[in-house]
């Protein structure tokens, strides 16, 4: 019994420092990610990459023998097309479901739906990709008589299903945050439930719902395996929903394994990583600022 108490009192400052260190670890990691990804690509970024061509040329021929070209416009178009389609599907469904779960459900039903949504969010992206590759692929070929089902449509639907849980859960939080007194006041004035939602709740929860959508967008842009497997491998700007595309994320996943370490190709993939990091960082930051906006009001 060599005074356990004494030992504890002495070790507490040490412990507090460890806790503080862990507390700021998230900051360290975010900077670390940016630093290490940037570091791997920095050499080529400052030495040889033509940034104008990088952003404006749709020609992505990183392994061409005669004339290597590194234009990511087609890849950006691929990401954009799939993301936009996913949002067109997921935003109405996600917000609709959020409103339903938050305003029309009894507590039991609400709990059930929330559990299902949680499970939906837990499905690994590679399983989604597999579903796109098999089930959705066949369905699209049958329905549209298309030569191949691995298309923008396929990827968009898969991404929509993946983003919906985020939109629902964050959207529901935003609706829940509207004080009950608003609802009661509106109902006391004789408004129907739908009028309450349309005229009171939606305007009041506007920012939170916007944040929900933004986080859904961030998820869709950053998703890798599902789009890698479900959108085919065609580096081109899509002209219809039934065109195959390739996204920024899928390109990294598909080519990093084959690019020789520290080659130009390898470094360009890291530069794409920096680009992706910056895009999602900006979207997340905006979402955060939007949410903070409500709190200050």
């Amino acid at each position, binding site marked *: 019994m060599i005074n*356990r108490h004494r030992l504890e009192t002495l070790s507490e400052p040490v412990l507090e420092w460890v806790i503080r260190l862990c507390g700021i670890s998230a900051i360290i990691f975010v900077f670390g990610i940016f630093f290490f990804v940037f570091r791997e690509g920095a050499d080529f970024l400052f030495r040889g990459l033509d940034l104008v061509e990088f952003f404006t040329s749709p020609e992505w021929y990183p392994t061409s023998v005669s004339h290597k070209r590194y234009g990511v416009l087609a890849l950006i178009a691929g990401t954009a097309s799939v993301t936009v389609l996913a949002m067109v599907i997921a935003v109405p469904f996600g917000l609709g479901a959020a409103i339903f779960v938050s305003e029309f459900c009894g507590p039991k039903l609400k709990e059930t739906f929330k559990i299902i949504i949680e499970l939906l969010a837990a499905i690994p992206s590679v399983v989604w990709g597999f579903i796109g590759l098999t089930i959705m692929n066949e369905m699209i070929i049958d329905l549209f008589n298309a030569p191949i089902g691995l298309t923008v449509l396929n990827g968009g639907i898969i991404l929509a299903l993946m983003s919906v849980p985020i939109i629902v859960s964050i959207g529901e939080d935003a609706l829940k945050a509207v004080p009950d007194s608003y609802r009661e006041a509106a109902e006391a004035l004789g408004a129907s439930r739908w009028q309450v939602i349309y005229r009171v709740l939606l305007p009041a929860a506007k920012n939170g719902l916007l944040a929900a959508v933004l986080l859904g967008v961030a998820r869709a842009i950053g998703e890798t395996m599902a789009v890698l497997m479900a959108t085919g491998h065609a580096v081109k700007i899509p002209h219809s929903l039934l065109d195959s595309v390739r996204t920024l994320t899928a390109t990294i996943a598909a080519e990093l394994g084959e690019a020789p370490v520290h080659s130009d190709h390898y470094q360009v993939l890291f530069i794409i990583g920096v680009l992706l990091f910056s895009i999602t960082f900006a979207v997340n930051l905006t979402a955060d600022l939007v949410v903070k906006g409500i709190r200050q009001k």
Partner: protein
Amino acid sequence: MRDDDKKIEISNLRVTYGEKEALKGISLDVYENEILSIIGPAQSGKTTLLKVINRTIDLVPDAKVQGTAKVDGENVRDVKSVYQLRRKIGMVFPLPVGLPLSIYDNVAFAPRAAGIRNRKDLDAIVEHCLQQAALWDEVKDRLDSLGTRLSGGQQQRLTIARALSHQPEILCLDEFSIAVDPVTTMRIEDVLKELRSQVTIILVTNLVQQARRLADRTAFLLNGELIEIDINEVIFSDSPANQMTYDYVSGTFG
């Protein structure tokens, strides 16, 4: 009066929460082994005063303290160990808080935090404190059940037992009777009367009659200012120094 046995000296104490001024520069002394009651309507800074004395004000974000508060002649801001300071002061707040531990562990919590591990010592402390708080007879057969499951009045006495468990020299009670029935209130008041020989008691209350029954001296706080402090015979007489005190005490306002 009795200058040499001042237990707490507060001089020119100002506390602000952001923009809001909770205490506007008050000065008062508390003597050893007296019961000082502090009366005043809500929002007059009574609770803030207690938080300054045991420095839990540090844990309130954006609170700013100016002026000095001394306990046993030592400025609370310069004490070596804030934990030792807090152990010297027992605190009971308006809403009873039974910790989600057994009744035994609730009372043994503070002694353990102070390093007492011996089971026999702990048993003695627990029994003594529960008896002091007039709770022992009701709970002695179920010391292992949860403190949070006791009734409100029992929890408040448990809180008092816990406040006594670290053998404080000063006991501060902040409107302890708010969540307690009148019978329990009377029992706790009896407990306080017995304790006055051992500890210094600061009794913050919104019940004027309670202050009159229990206290040796009474201070009247209003909107963060000290209106008057004097022995009970003066405060509750027909002619206290300040007309507002008379109005408040006689029930004209407040």
